[in-house]
């Protein structure tokens, strides 16, 4: 018996799922465009924002979901649990929403230590408390040994969007300043350093944390923000390429302003990885009219972690080369900042 597919059948360069399909780069985008959008497409999903903005009655809510498969599950600066809470809270907050409620779904592997589960769940509770959200529903499934890597967590979240806020990755305008709230690549590099088999000593800790308070303050002072994203998988490079492409605008970055910790820079070079492709879990990128940029920067500096000097205006939106991100190097030459292809290393976040 043959099954007739109802949606367009995609043509792939790859016939099977590769690790890179989950890494937030070109292959992840291809999967979304060629498999999910043709079957699920609708006006909320098609924007490819981190959250769907839904009109219910007179108001608007934001709705999002994310699944966390990080390895190792305990890493310097966080756990898979607080990552699962903060990640979903942040996906709501970057849409201009106030996060309110989360669900938590667990896939547990037979033999997973209960003490580890307890630690993960406690870290989730702490993170939810700090972010001002409640975990109001959940689900648990157990699979046989070898069928998952200890623990996978899915979190979904709902938040409300205040009237007058219109933030989307399609909203970049020429003349916007691009601002980042702190140093780049800390989370991904902390996780890599903690991975089995990678034996270099480092004091790099993950930046995993909720951004809802910071974003709420930014929006209170600068409601005219055009776009926001948290640069998670694929790092700053993936985020800016997505913004440029969705808005059909160009972005020019000034290399000398990009905040990267020296130890993250050093570890990246050791591994042959560009820190701009490395994941962050507690940073936000904001596009805002140039005249409001300093105001946003000041709010970020009040919240900056670990130091106030890390937030920076890193570039601007231009009409030229739509869909592309260009870096002005420290020597004054130019290069393209490409969308990363796929995984830097498996399962960073």
């Amino acid at each position, binding site marked *: 018996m043959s099954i007739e597919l109802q949606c367009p059948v995609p043509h792939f360069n790859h016939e099977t799922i590769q690790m890179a399909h989950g890494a937030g780069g070109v292959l992840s985008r291809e999967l979304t465009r060629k498999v999910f959008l043709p079957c699920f497409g609708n006006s909320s999903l098609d924007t490819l924002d981190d959250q769907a903005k839904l009109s219910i009655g007179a108001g608007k809510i934001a709705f999002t979901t994310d699944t966390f498969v990080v390895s190792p599950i305990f890493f310097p600066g966080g756990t898979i649990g607080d990552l699962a809470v903060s990640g979903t809270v942040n996906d709501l907050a970057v849409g201009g929403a106030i996060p309110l409620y989360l669900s938590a779904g667990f896939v547990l592997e037979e033999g997973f230590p209960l003490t580890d589960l307890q630690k993960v769940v406690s870290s989730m509770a702490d993170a939810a408390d700090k972010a001002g959200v409640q975990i109001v529903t959940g689900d648990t499934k157990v699979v046989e040994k070898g069928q998952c890597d200890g623990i996978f967590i899915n979190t979904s979240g709902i938040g409300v969007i205040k009237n007058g806020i219109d933030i989307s990755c399609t909203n970049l305008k020429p003349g916007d300043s691009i601002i980042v709230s702190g140093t780049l690549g800390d989370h991904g590099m902390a996780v890599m350093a903690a991975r089995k088999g990678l034996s270099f000593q480092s004091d790099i800790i993950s930046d995993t944390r909720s951004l809802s308070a910071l974003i709420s303050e930014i929006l209170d002072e600068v409601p005219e923000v055009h776009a926001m994203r948290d640069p998670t998988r694929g790092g700053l490079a993936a985020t800016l390429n997505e913004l440029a492409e969705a808005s059909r605008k160009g972005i020019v970055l000034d290399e*000398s302003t990009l905040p990267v910790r020296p130890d993250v820079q050093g570890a990246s070079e050791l591994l042959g990885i560009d820190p701009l492709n490395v994941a962050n879990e507690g940073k936000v990128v904001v596009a805002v009219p140039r005249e409001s940029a300093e105001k946003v920067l000041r709010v970020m500096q009040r919240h900056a972690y670990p130091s106030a000097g890390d937030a920076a205006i890193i570039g601007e939106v231009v009409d030229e080369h739509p869909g592309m991100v260009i870096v002005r190097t420290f020597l004054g030459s130019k290069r393209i900042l490409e969308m990363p292809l796929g995984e830097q290393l498996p399962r960073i976040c």
Partner: protein
Amino acid sequence: MKFIDEYRDSDRARNILKKIEDTVTKPWTIMEICGGQTHSIVRNGIDQLLPDGVRLIHGPGCPVCVTPLDILDRALSIVSKPGVILASFGDMLRVPGSRETLSVAKSGGADVRVVFSPLEALNIARENPQHEVFFLAIGFETTAPGNAMAIKQAARENLRNFSELVSQFMVPPAMRAILSSEKNMIQGFLAAGHVCTVTGYEEYERIGEEFHVPIVPTGFEPVDILSGILRVIEMLESGRSGVHNEYGRVVSREGNPVAKKVVDEVFHVADGHWRGIGVIPQSGLQLRDEFAPFDTQKKFNVADIQPDESPLCRSGDVLRGMITPERCEAFGKECTPLKPLGAPMVSAEGACAAYYKYHGKVL
């Protein structure tokens, strides 16, 4: 960071650029041997800033690019056998074999593991005594000492489930081959700093004298590369040849004697088959007979390997410096990092990938 920041200093870099402009009186063609230098040049846009007459040609020094297709096909064939684990540097996973990549084989169930050193591969062998573990030992004089150490250690421990699929090359024979070619246009070299750290530069002095070319070992930071270019141009302009070491903070004339000794103990010199280039006499390293039990090729007798290169790919011409990547008709069309035809589009050190990533398309 000491030894880093001062080599990324924009004032210092601009001063050297100005000196290059002041020194150049005629066109010169210089080859940077190493893929790491290629990436630094393109990433920092150094090629855009040089005076018009100064042309940089990318050399064959990308270890992933020159690993022959049959080695990759062999690795794919061996890892498809039950109970076998392949340990490899991450770069090799996306290199196209004749039919598939290691990454695709991995998704199909092959046990392919990414490691950061051959010693990590040894650990996998220790932890999996019921499995055969082989390491894809590729690279130039820089990786050879580590790969040799792993073999020596395996022999010391009598770790008979470990072996290496060796594809090691040496740079000086390739430089001689390029300079001996009738079509050669290279007038001076930036020699690969990390290779010279191991080997020293005595052999380069002989090449410089024999072919009357300037050779300047240099590092990978923008100031290193610009200083190297300036020194080559100064030597060219004044008719001097030979070696001037611009990477004195790590490179010495005699190199690293301990590393050289372990390489000599484990490997012997043999003809080397470079992907895209062909056989270069006495340019490869193979395991000595006494280490035969650790030689993957001898352990697994894989017959019927018939590599099938794409006829569109001109990576050989790129690796020999005959063309720059964008002059290959397939560049950016049939061949992209997502669907590469040849290894230079895959490796982080490949010239085609560097061009595509940093400025091949529009700049």
